[in-house]
């Protein structure tokens, strides 16, 4: 697997993501500036967290409409893997690569703390190193992570097994997301978007390795 991190102006967790990918892949990912979006040879495109274009207008909206999205869309159509974390998830929903939208957190505040995620399926390229039902910790840091989709879409996501992670006790659902959804998959299971940051918990010194299996899963695929 060859990984690449997309760099939009205002993205700020690209270094965290590169560290996590390097740990699991044994080599650093390619860093791709949004104007030079040549994805040849790339298996998994990662859109990291941050505030692309300042999160002005709507989180992820401007990046989702930037020219390089064409290359990312083509990558998806080719059946390539895409991982969007936090702002990356917002960008994927704004671009229509994943359904729904991320609204303001229900408490109207930025929330930066650890949450607990339950793995809803352990048989995807992103989650094979987790067990289904396993609960793990991940830092979250966002103001707009309140997942919304209309009831029919939510039913379809659940029915087709496309919910990847849900917020779980003891922390519970911190931001008001519909049906506790923290991360979702595309129908072909090759696009994953999630709000929390497993890439910030891949080192015992920083509080644990709860996020590492996600990257190990990808590396092993």
């Amino acid at each position, binding site marked *: 697997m060859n990984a690449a991190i997309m760099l939009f*102006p*205002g993205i*700020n*967790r690209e*270094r*965290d993501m590169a*560290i*996590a990918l390097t740990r699991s892949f044994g080599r650093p990912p390619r860093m791709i500036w949004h*104007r030079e979006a040549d994805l040849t040879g790339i298996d998994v495109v990662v859109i990291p*967290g*941050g*505030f692309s*274009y*300042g*999160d*002005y207008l709507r989180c992820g909206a401007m990046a989702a409409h930037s020219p390089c999205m064409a290359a990312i869309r083509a990558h998806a159509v080719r059946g390539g893997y895409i991982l969007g974390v936090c702002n990356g998830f917002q960008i994927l929903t704004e671009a229509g690569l994943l359904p729904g939208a991320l609204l303001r957190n229900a*408490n109207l*505040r*930025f*929330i*930066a*703390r650890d949450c607990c995620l339950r793995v809803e399926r352990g048989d995807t390229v992103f989650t094979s190193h987790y067990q289904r039902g396993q609960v793990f910790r991940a*830092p979250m*840091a966002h*103001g707009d992570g309140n997942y919304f989709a209309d009831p029919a879409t939510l039913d379809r996501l659940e029915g087709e097994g496309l919910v990847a992670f849900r917020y779980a006790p003891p922390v519970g659902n911190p931001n008001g997301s519909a049906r506790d959804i923290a991360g979702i998959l595309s129908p072909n299971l090759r696009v994953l978007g999630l709000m929390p*940051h497993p*890439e*910030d918990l891949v*080192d015992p*010194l*920083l*509080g644990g390795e709860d996020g590492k299996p996600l990257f190990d899963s990808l590396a092993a695929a």
Partner: protein
Amino acid sequence: MTARTVDAALAREFGLAAGEYARVLAILGRTPTLAELGIFSVMWSEHCSYKSSRLWLRQLPTTAPWVIHGPGENAGVVDIGDGLAAVFKMESHNHPSFIEPYQGAATGVGGIMRDVFTMGARPIANLNALRFGDPAHPRTRHIVDGVVRGIGGYGNCVGVATVGGEVDFHPAYNGNPLVNAMTVGVARRDRIFLSAAAGVGNPVVYVGSKTGRDGIHGATMASAAFAGDSEAKRPTVQVGDPFTEKLLIEACLELMATDAIVAIQDMGAAGLTSSSVEMAGKGGVGIALDLDAVPQREAGMTAYEMMLSESQERMLMVLRPEREALARAIFAKWELDFSVIGRLTDSGRIVVRHRGRIEADIPLAPLADQAPLYRRPTAPPAPPPPLHRLPDPAGLAPALLRLLACPDLCARTWIWDQYDATVGGQTVKRPGAADAAVVRIEGHARALALTTDCTPRYCAADAAQGAAQAVAEAWRNLTAVGATPLALTDNLNFGNPERPEVMGQLVAAVTGMAAACRALDFPVVSGNVSLYNETDGRSVLPTPAIGGLGVMEDAAQAVGIALPAGHDLVLLGAATGHLGQSLWLREVAGQAAGWPPQVDLPAERRVGDFVRARIRAGGVAACHDVSDGGLLVAVAEMVLAGDVGAALLPGPDGLTPHGFWFGEEQARYVLAVGDGAALVAAALAAGVPARRLGTTGGGDLTLPDGATISLMTLRQAHERFLPDWLEQGREFQAQG
């Protein structure tokens, strides 16, 4: 500002005293233009010239073998090993944060980050030292909410982890909160960028955001006392744009990897004026500016407005001429304005042209050398009311619960939870986990320890002791995680220096700081003075906030405050039962009396060096310094952080229980170790007072008088106040 006649009256409106205006006339030999008057007034404002404090700041020790750049640059620079340097500074945004809490705090964070990356360092951590008014005051809630959102809004977006800080509440800050922001960056020690311009003919380049009419006379505003009509000063409010700041950081760091930059300086207070004057002045050259080339957001701006604008997210650089195209391309990539707005000259003057006219022509040397310097009258601060012997009105358990719940000691979780503390992927100790934040340096085992400290109620009672205590506490907090304290930055927040008693506080505080810095080998490498913090004649408490920085070679050695089960608790340092100016006295006995605890600097050093050596040797499972609230509060905080109970032994004979458990003597630490008796023996052998306090484990805190408090009860007491007050809109009820 059309066609105002420049005269003594206008000069006074601009904040220049009569004697200062006379000096302007003498330097120029003519009446200044409006732009020139503006330049003199901001350069000679308290904020930029330090005219009331400069004389006294000279007492502070600023050198050490590890100090690379002390005060005088945009930020202080210290050697942290591995060929790396830490670059850090603290700065106030007090007045703007009162007028518009969100934007005031946000632009404060943005401004201090620019001081750090302008030197070539990538910012890796932010801290904030905050003082708010009485929670019962109607405006305080709005200010707290806005300031916290603003700090988070800016730092989270830029993607620099906010890892620490402090918060106090006191009615003295009702009309004048203090918002002191600190940024720490890391650079290669051989790649530090300075601001002294060089190379006659070299281009002077403006980069970043466009200039608008924001914040005109902000530096003067920061140099004047507030009256009730401060609403009238509102048009000077600036709006921060963290997205542009993020681009500016990346663009500057990309350019700094080349050899294009001769000198660089952020445009902070007094914008284009102070940056151009300081760069040329430090380099001993002249500078010619063409304002028509300044990127402008609004039409029809005058030279006066452009020179004084404090629009945010702008930098000024001097480039090697042959690298101009390369630099332009980098800024085009990041979609930032880039414009050559002038050249360096050999005239020793600043000459400003606009629309074909010379709007300012000032010799630089006298602008700097003849800046006013005052030895203002001082009056010795009044001694605090005496403390009489007190019986314990409450008992240990009720007093502990009350202290843990009070605004100055309650959990700050509601605040940190709005700050991204993990971005960057290097935060080893987050807020609340340890006495100092610990941030590893990417790609290295090495880490920085960071803290801010000040106890204003001590400073109000005894400014010299209080300031020494602030330095000692910062040093102690760095020590408590196992770091070697290296240097500090400070933010001296005081009232109106034209009042002798305020000047007396300032002088005493600087003296106390200097003594502590010297005794602890803890030099001052950068800082900021914020005066005129008063409203309607009432000053804030003297608040010399200290930002400390330490280093540890191996981040894995960092120790936090969380208790593990099955350990012994040991107190290191002397117990004398000092209750003067303690929180117990204020919150439980309802008094603010007595002298604050004395700072015994040799003891501070002896105990601290012993603690650090024990941590380095391994075997210290948790460590917490004893400060606000005393010993029992320190233990309770360790219990809560570890979610593990403890059972405590009685204190020594000869001290009252409340004196022992709530006294605030300095130079003390609580350690959790496997073998308490061995630690006590080793400490006593090293001349460090030591005493076993008890053992850890279980789900309760058991006090020596037999009282038992469940962790849940403790936690509820500790965590309730801020969320109740700020989210539920519950009014603050003073207890007791």
